[in-house]
């Protein structure tokens, strides 16, 4: 009997990795085009051109890095490039950045994500971390202040994370918070400044559904991830007694804001589903998504950065081998074990999130109008850490 050994993703049916990646690229292109349209109609042609330039730089850097690596290793370049899918990383990375990032910063981050994040681990299929998330983390840590004069207003994520600590205490604060982010409908359609590709929750969800039907991505991961975030934040809203807004009770609108803002939907559809860095079994993937959801909410509520989606992905990438080995064995035994693990993890996560939420001080005043907070707001805007609010 002959065994074949391949690195993941291992596929059944009539699919090939190439076809999957091609369809994923089409999905990304749809979201990207929407974003171009938004910047074109809202800010003018120069902004759209800037977005195109960023994508172009990332693609060129990715291809050059991989070609040079293939040359040094004396491999067949064409075959190596077509099997390495560096352009997917480049596209995802570009779409996770805010439009005011310098092309230089994006280029360096792309190099890091391709070279250190992927090629040094052994190329496509052997990388531990999602290369695009790795590149975004490089930008977080190295180029916080590297912005061009292409300016957009503060993103909802920045406002929510920095001014309101994700925790408005009074009705007035809620009203001002929702006014400054533009309401739930705006968050849903994505007509607001943010990272290039991750604003439109509606479009990303549609693309995600199409991709799931075509078996390009696993529907379980985004579904479990988004529902878990919804449930966890709903529990937080109930515990902290967050008031209703426009007639919607707190445990409905508050989770909606959590799910729709920032890079959560984008990360759920395009990054957590990465077949290389997520577990292979269905049970493993549900656990993976649940863990990521818990970490996202925890980072949002308690850490000193506004968004947690990116680091939750990276942390869960690290735990993937652990999940794989835990979900290995006889099928029936594994199924029971997976249920127990899921219930246990959910209980622990809920307890942790509620504990974290109980120690966050709610913002009772309206930070955008009151005089003392005005200066604080300005300071925060000037503070470089605000730039982190851009995306994921």
């Amino acid at each position, binding site marked *: 009997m002959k065994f074949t050994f391949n690195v993941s993703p291992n596929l059944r049916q009539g699919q090939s990795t190439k076809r999957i990646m091609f369809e994923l690229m089409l999905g990304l292109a749809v979201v990207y085009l929407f974003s171009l349209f938004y910047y074109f109609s809202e800010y003018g042609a120069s902004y759209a051109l800037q977005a195109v330039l960023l994508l172009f730089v990332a693609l060129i850097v990715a291809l050059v890095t991989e070609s040079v690596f293939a040359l040094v290793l004396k491999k067949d370049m064409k075959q190596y490039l077509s099997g390495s899918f560096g352009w997917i990383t480049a596209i995802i990375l570009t779409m996770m950045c805010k439009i005011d990032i*310098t092309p*230089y910063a994006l280029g*360096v981050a792309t190099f890091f994500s391709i070279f*250190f994040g992927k090629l040094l681990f052994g190329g496509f299929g052997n990388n531990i971390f999602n290369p695009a998330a790795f590149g975004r983390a*490089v930008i977080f*840590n*190295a*180029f916080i202040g*590297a912005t061009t004069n292409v300016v957009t207003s503060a993103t909802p994520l920045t406002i929510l994370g920095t001014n309101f600590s994700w925790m408005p205490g009074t009705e007035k604060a809620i009203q001002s918070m929702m006014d400054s982010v533009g309401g739930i409908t705006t968050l849903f359609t994505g007509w607001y400044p943010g990272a290039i590709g991750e604003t439109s929750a509606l479009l990303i969800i549609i693309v995600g559904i199409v991709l799931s039907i075509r078996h390009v991505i696993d529907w379980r991961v985004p579904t479990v991830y988004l529902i878990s975030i919804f449930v966890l934040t709903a529990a937080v809203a109930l515990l902290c007694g967050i008031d209703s807004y426009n007639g919607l009770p707190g445990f409905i609108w508050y989770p909606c804001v959590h799910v729709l803002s920032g890079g959560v939907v984008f990360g759920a559809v395009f990054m957590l589903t990465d077949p290389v860095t997520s577990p292979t079994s269905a049970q493993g993937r549900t656990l993976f998504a649940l863990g990521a959801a818990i970490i996202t909410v925890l980072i949002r509520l308690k850490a000193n950065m506004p968004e947690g989606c990116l680091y939750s992905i990276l942390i869960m990438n690290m735990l993937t081998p652990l999940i794989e080995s835990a979900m290995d064995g006889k099928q029936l035994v594994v199924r029971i074990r997976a249920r127990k693990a899921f219930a246990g993890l959910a209980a622990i996560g809920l307890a942790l999130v509620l504990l974290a939420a109980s120690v966050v001080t709610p913002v009772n005043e309206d930070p955008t109008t009151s005089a003392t907070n005005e200066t604080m707001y300005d300071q925060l805007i000037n503070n470089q850490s605000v730039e982190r609010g851009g995306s994921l």
Partner: protein
Amino acid sequence: MDRKKNFTAGFLRENPVFSLYLGCCSTLAITTSLNNAIGMGVAVIAVLILSNVLISLMRKITPNEIRIPVYIVIIAALVKVIQMLIQAYAQSLYTSLGTFIPLIVVNCIILGRAEAFASKNGVLDSALDGLGMGLGYTCAIIVMSLIREILATGMIHFTNPFDAAQVLFEIRLIPEDFVISLFSQPFGAFCTFACLAAALVAYKDHQAKKQERLEKEAK
């Protein structure tokens, strides 16, 4: 001839940092600036030579069973002397190196050379070995700190260690807009370290293959 070979071993073939992977802790931590690297290098060279000489002198009277404690006591005493000297004469270096000066005691290079070389060889040989290894360590951390400093701040900056206000030279190589501050963080340290170690392994591999080919041709 043999003496010369022993002396030069520390630079590439048996470079303590990139080839033997000794003393990584201080290497990763203090290579953020050229000043730190040179100060640390000089301190390590001094301790290494003195400890090698002392241990070599005492090798005949040291009972084998308690040799490690004896080495540690000698090294710790020397490090304390060096630490006090640095504190007295180079205050700014003392503050920027911080806890890593006392930690020279547990730097594996020093104990490693005492155990592997000084306890078996004569005084002069041991002193030379200490100097060679110390210079190898210093070269390694200087190269690393240069790379990290240039990438993270865009310039090479060196001040007089005895007077922090006196800047000896300062050149800007990369414009301020293009620096990668990541390299002053731990990630940058690991990244640089791994790349340099890999480069050295590749070089040694290449040399070994060349040697092999030459030997084959000679046959």
